[in-house]
């Protein structure tokens, strides 16, 4: 049996089956139409998200249910590791870095709110995730850090984050609004994935770089739109995360303008990208548009990969993309329903 067959036959069959059980568009629509959160949660009861309803039925607390969902999502990666060989298991760890970073970001935000902004964070701490993903982060020790320097020193003790936080410490960088740090952590995540891709056979490597490149392009486009009123284009370009499907060198060539950068960034995606080149709309609308366009691009690209060789890493990556998209969308709809019902007075906290 070929290596790819041994590596992927079981895991891909499992994930392909799970893909069939992802929520359908019709379900989202019905969920969105629920008049209050309780009814929306009850709709989830017979689905694979029944646990969220169970928690909500006990606590009435959406955030508690969300926390459970996130922990379950992380748990799924860990469970999958049991069915994979060394290479895939290592790669799953690299994918888990995303969650490790998200949790660290949450704690840093909390620390920032508490220490820098002097806000009461007691209402937020119960919703924080304390499970170990990759780094054995000690959140209490993190929260006890008295200053930014202390915080950098503390986080530098973890191998994964040493380079990023030592740089912050050496350069005595201020956290300001956290945006730069969050972006540096994202940069770290993509770098880890790209490094890990090098260990795979060419076919897998190509898929990993393609899908990651798409995500990087998306992040870069958002960065561009967010920063354009705040900093010069050259600086924004320098700050782009490398590894996108349109190379950073290409972006800087020729006359610099928001439109030209967008144009070059979107060139690998054919006609879909042109939707973003229109001048109308404020940055927020454009960001929403970017999200919608990239979602569509993702759907098309992943469908293409799914039609090809079934014994590649494609199915696994696509499952994760879709599953995490599903979780994100679900949480967003539930919050929307709660907000809507509070506004309309059809339920929820008043």
């Amino acid at each position: 049996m070929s290596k790819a067959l041994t590596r992927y036959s079981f895991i891909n069959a499992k994930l392909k089956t799970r893909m069939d059980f992802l929520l359908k568009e019709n379900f989202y629509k019905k969920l969105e139409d629920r008049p209050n959160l309780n009814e929306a949660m009850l709709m989830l009861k017979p689905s694979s998200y029944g646990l969220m309803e169970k928690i909500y039925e006990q606590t009435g607390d959406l955030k508690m249910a969300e926390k459970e969902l996130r922990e379950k999502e992380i748990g799924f990666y860990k469970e999958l590791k049991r069915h994979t060989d060394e290479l895939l298991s290592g790669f799953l760890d690299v994918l888990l870095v995303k969650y490790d970073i998200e949790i660290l970001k949450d704690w840093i935000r909390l620390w920032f709110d508490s220490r820098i902004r002097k806000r009461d964070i007691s209402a937020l701490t119960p919703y924080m995730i304390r499970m170990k993903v990759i780094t054995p982060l000690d959140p209490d020790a993190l929260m006890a850090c008295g200053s930014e320097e202390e915080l950098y020193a503390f986080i530098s003790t973890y191998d994964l984050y040493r380079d990023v936080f030592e740089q912050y410490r050496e350069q005595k960088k201020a956290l300001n609004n956290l945006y730069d740090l969050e972006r540096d952590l994202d940069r770290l995540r993509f770098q880890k994935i790209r490094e890990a891709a090098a260990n795979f056979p060419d076919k897998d490597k190509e898929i990993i770089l393609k899908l990651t490149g798409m995500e990087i392009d998306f992040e870069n486009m958002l960065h561009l739109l967010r920063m354009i009123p705040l900093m010069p284009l050259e600086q924004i370009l320098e700050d782009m995360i490398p590894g996108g499907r349109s190379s950073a060198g290409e972006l800087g060539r020729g006359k610099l303008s928001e439109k030209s950068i967008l144009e070059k960034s979107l060139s690998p995606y054919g006609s879909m990208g042109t939707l973003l080149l229109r001048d109308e709309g404020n940055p927020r609308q454009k960001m929403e548009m970017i999200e919608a366009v990239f979602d569509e691009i993702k759907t098309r690209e992943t469908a293409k990969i799914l039609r090809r060789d079934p014994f590649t890493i494609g199915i696994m990556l696509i499952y994760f993309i879709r599953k995490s998209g599903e979780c994100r969308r679900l949480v967003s709809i539930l919050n929307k329903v709660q907000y809507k019902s509070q506004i309309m007075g059809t339920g929820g906290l008043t």
Partner: protein
Amino acid sequence: MILSSKMNHLTAVVTRTHLESVTEILLQTGVMDFIKTEEIPFLRDQRLQSLEISESAARMAESRLRIETLLRTADLLPVMSDELTANDTLDKIEKMLDALSGEQQRFRDSQQDLQSEINRLLDLKRQMELFGDEKALLERAQQGMSGYSFLFMETGSIESRMLPGLEESLGTLTTIVIEAVSIGKLSHCIIMGMKKDQNEIRRRLESASWQQGPLPPEAAAGLSSGNGNSRAAGDIDEKVKGLREKQNKIKEESRDYISGKMEWLQSTWNDLRIRELHLKIQSYFSASESCLLFNGWVPQEHREALDTGIKKAAQGHCLLEWHDTRWVEKTTEGKLTPPVEMKNPGALRPFEMLVKNFGTPAYGTIDPTPLVALSYLTMFGLMFGDAGHGLVLMLAGFLLFFRDRKKGKEPKYLYTLIIYCGGAAVIAGILFGSWFGYGWFPPLWFNFHAVVEGHSSGREAISSIYDILLITIWFGIIVLALGILLNIVNSIRKRDWISLVFSKSGILGGWMYAAGIHTAFVFAGSSYKTMPSAPVLLLGLGLPALLLLLKEPVEQALEGHSFSLKPSSVMNLFMEWIVELLEIFSGYLANTLSFMRVAGLGIAHVSLMTAFFQMADMAPPAGGFIILLLGNALVIALEGLSAGIQSLRLNYYEFFSKYFNGTGRAYEPVSLKTRLGGNSES
């Protein structure tokens, strides 16, 4: 059974004034498989419009789905009933549902308030645990600082008799009162709470005559002797427990609330469902200014009842035109095909499910369900012939059936199938004398285990594995011959004369297959030395093969064309003939040999059991028992699954391919039993 219901086509015209009564009778009889008028060429007329319906089906469906959702609170399911007991307007139903849903949401909101308090308390406890030992807690308390930006701490004293009152007063805030020591009439305490509540805590402390100040030295002794921190933690745990109990109580209240409304919810759900079904029927109606027109298929045995019913409902103001399938087929040039109603007794439904999974038989052809039941169970029994294992399967089937008795039909059919398979295995096990691999009773037919192990089977005719293989080959021949026979019957019923004579499973195919079997047995019987005589070969194989050459010319002649004798056409004819002959010979050979898997799996079953017996013999008694237990479990699970799948495969690909045309459309009348879409689709 075997043949599906004979269908009649009804075209009905009734006056508009009888819309409701006619709809009602159509729903009550529930036998009509409707067709949109636009789909019928001879009914298309520009003067006909779709019937305008005033009520909103979408609103009804939404309300019905909301009821289903709300019932989930109490793990209840609506039950279908034919009776209309409620008749509220949609507006009223919607208002009522809003009220119910709002009330449920209020229950959850109350739980959330409690949860916020639980969260704060648990956070407080965690923060306290971070202080480490009691000494550290005391030091922090003495300094009046928690070390955390959101935690408030203070020490002081209060008259002991006032302490319970203070605790009660602070109980509504996230606070912990630790009585460090009691000296005389004074209780010296540590107060902990959230910094955001600091002002409120202070206000309540003042009203309880709290005296802020350091703790006396005895307090330190009291705490370090063991329980300042754990007392506080215990206090928090107690509070959290109380709050969780309150949450549970609210949860039960919310369930009881919905259960209490069950009667209204059930009757309204049913009312909505029936109203939706009315609308569904009316959506098939076309209307002119004064008349309504609808059409559809009705099984012949219900024709009279429906005819009478409609005439009665329309008080005679109607025109009903009945046609048989042949007339419709001719008039629509085969564009409109009748639906297929499979009529099998309840006991055969699991096999009907297997057939439907492959496809619905074309109208007028044979419904293979009873034959599938027979062949499936025989194959399963031959592959899984152990009475003990069969009993376990039956038991598992019964348990699953009992566990999911409230679920839909499909799981029940599956569990019934498991029970049947278990039964087939028991019968086969008795025939082979196998009980969990042991020969506790003598076999009624032959000892399968003995044959596989190279001993005497108790029957002279079956002395080796080859004999078992031969049995399954004969079984395969019977199944395939039956398939050919069914194809001949189907072709005659469909008047498909070409298929009857020339198809692979037609007369010529069957002729060649019979001759092929004869040839193979003569050849094998002479130790692979002699073939049948030349005249037999010529008549059995040569003649039908030659006749097959006439397929295309005959086909063309029947269509009214003459066969072209151009070299290219003749060449094509020969090429197709050769390919077809190859397909017939290789196909039938492969199909027949494919049944050897039945013996293969039976042999594997026995071999696995033998292997476990040998392993058990090598182990100490207790270990041996465990090996046998696990071995039996493994064989039941693994072989049970394999035998089930292989039986299905042989039915689908060897048996069905001979005669079954799954191009039919299932008969789906709109009736009170019709299921409408639910909201759990995910």
